């Protein structure tokens, strides 16, 4: 598939934002129900990333002025669900930032063991839930495309989740360091583990994709039961949507090179930088790595329709 920069930026930006929101809630619970400016500013940062992601997504649409229509088919389309969840999560992040900024913490429920759930915690949990749901939607947009073997598995969802969490916690670690927050250590530690986990899952998917067999062949594509079939011409000598949208520039060489690059820059180096106590650099490095990862995610995907477009002429 042709990697679209709009989607590469959209998914990496909102992934980091969702991870950051989850990290903030986790930090809030870890710190024993803290509230205040640290969380407010953090949520504002996440909100900014979400908005940047939305801006990037607009570039993906040929008719963005009708973008609102994309919320119509949430019953059947994961893309529609994502389109609804991004603004919903943005609204939650905004609320989260506001109540932390003003320090509103009325107790909502008191549990049997005496623990209290106050508004910031409830909102944090809600934001976490929405972020997780958004990870599922984003992952499923790709995982439900049955005709791309490399995408059509649960691992796609797992990877979107883990890579988003990893970059979000790394961002939270960088942010905590810059704010001199006590949560800095907690965030760094979690970021290291999540990045390692994401590395394992993504590396597994890479390996899995190199070993699988294609589901369809030219035999069933044209319904001729012959052991040797080749295309003489795809029917035109130029190009078409089908020869551009479904192929990546650069070919297999680029995919291999960038795969090694993103494994190193997106996962290994950030872990080293986090352990060395340089979370800001770790986040920047990881973000660049994840951009390359997303490029490979698209470029590595081979669509069934390519069976019909093999020979110019």
């Amino acid at each position: 598939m042709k990697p679209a920069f709009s989607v590469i930026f959209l998914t990496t930006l909102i992934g980091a934002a969702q991870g950051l929101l989850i990290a903030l809630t986790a930090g809030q619970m870890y710190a024993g129900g803290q509230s205040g400016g640290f969380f407010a500013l953090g949520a504002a940062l996440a909100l900014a990333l979400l908005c940047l992601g939305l801006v990037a997504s607009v570039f993906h649409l040929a008719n963005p002025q009708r973008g609102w229509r994309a919320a119509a088919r949430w019953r059947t389309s994961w893309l529609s669900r994502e389109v609804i969840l991004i603004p919903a999560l943005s609204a939650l992040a905004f609320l989260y930032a506001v109540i932390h900024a003003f320090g509103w913490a009325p107790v909502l429920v008191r549990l049997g063991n005496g623990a209290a759930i106050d508004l910031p915690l409830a909102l944090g949990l809600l934001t976490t839930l929405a972020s997780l749901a958004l990870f599922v939607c984003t992952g499923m947009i790709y995982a439900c495309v049955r005709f791309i073997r490399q995408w059509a598995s649960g691992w796609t969802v797992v990877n979107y989740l883990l890579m988003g969490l990893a970059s979000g916690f790394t961002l939270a670690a960088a942010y905590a360091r810059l704010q001199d927050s006590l949560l800095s250590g907690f965030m760094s530690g979690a970021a290291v583990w999540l990045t390692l986990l994401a590395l394992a899952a993504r590396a597994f998917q890479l390996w899995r994709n190199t070993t699988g067999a294609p589901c369809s062949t030219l035999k069933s594509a044209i319904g001729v039961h012959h052991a040797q079939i080749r295309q003489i011409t795809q029917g035109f000598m130029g190009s078409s949507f089908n020869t551009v949208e479904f192929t990546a520039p650069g070919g297999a060489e680029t995919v291999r090179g960038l795969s090694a690059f993103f494994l190193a820059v997106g996962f290994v180096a950030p872990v080293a930088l986090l352990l060395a106590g340089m979370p800001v650099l770790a986040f920047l490095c990881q973000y660049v790595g994840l951009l390359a990862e997303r490029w490979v995610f698209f470029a590595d995907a081979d669509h069934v329709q390519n069976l019909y477009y093999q020979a110019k002429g």
Partner: protein
Amino acid sequence: MTKKQLALVIDLNVCVGCHACVTSCKEWNTSGWAGPLPDVNPYGADPNGVFFNRVQTYECGTFPNTETIHFPKSCLHCEEPPCVPVCPTGASYKRDEDGIVLVDYDKCIGCKYCSWSCPYGAREFDPVQGVMKKCTLCVDRIYDQTIEAERRKPACVLACPAGARIFGDINDPESEAARAIRDNGGFPLMPEWGTRPANHYLPRRKTTTTLHPDQLTRVDNPLKAEGETPRPAFTTPTIDGVSSW
């Protein structure tokens, strides 16, 4: 009663790969409801254009024992179209009344997601209007009351000089299309995906005759065997009046 499902049945044994359906489809649709079908850089080194129908050519076997297959391909108007439910706007839809899969160009936002969910590569994006396009089964022709009844057929069907394209309701057992599928072993493309394409293809058929040696030598030609019949008189009446002598 099964639902009406209009479709094309394409006979691979008849198609000669002349691309008449391609050009007539382009002509009809670029000037009609679905148009224009833009061509980017049409006279340059790498032209890129929107077509609803493509004729491809495949070859089987090893030279000299090869077989050439011309293979026209357009949207198959699947009965379980995977391209429809994924559309976030509802712009892609399948009509209840005749099973045609269409795109509403006023709703489409051009996200291209539907094209990812078509295994046949049947959808082509219009970069000028910014919407997804595909074969409409000539919906703006087949119901047009101003066209004489027997020409209310898709442009590609009318154009095919070999008669390789049949149009009809495949769920009506009496239709020419359904009969062609039934009688000639019509098959769908990539049935493994469960898309149930409405368009069907008729297989290549081998045409052979068996000759026995005795058929090669003349054993029974009582009248015309050389030298056996006397030349008729010039005035003898003959069937056509001229050819006897």
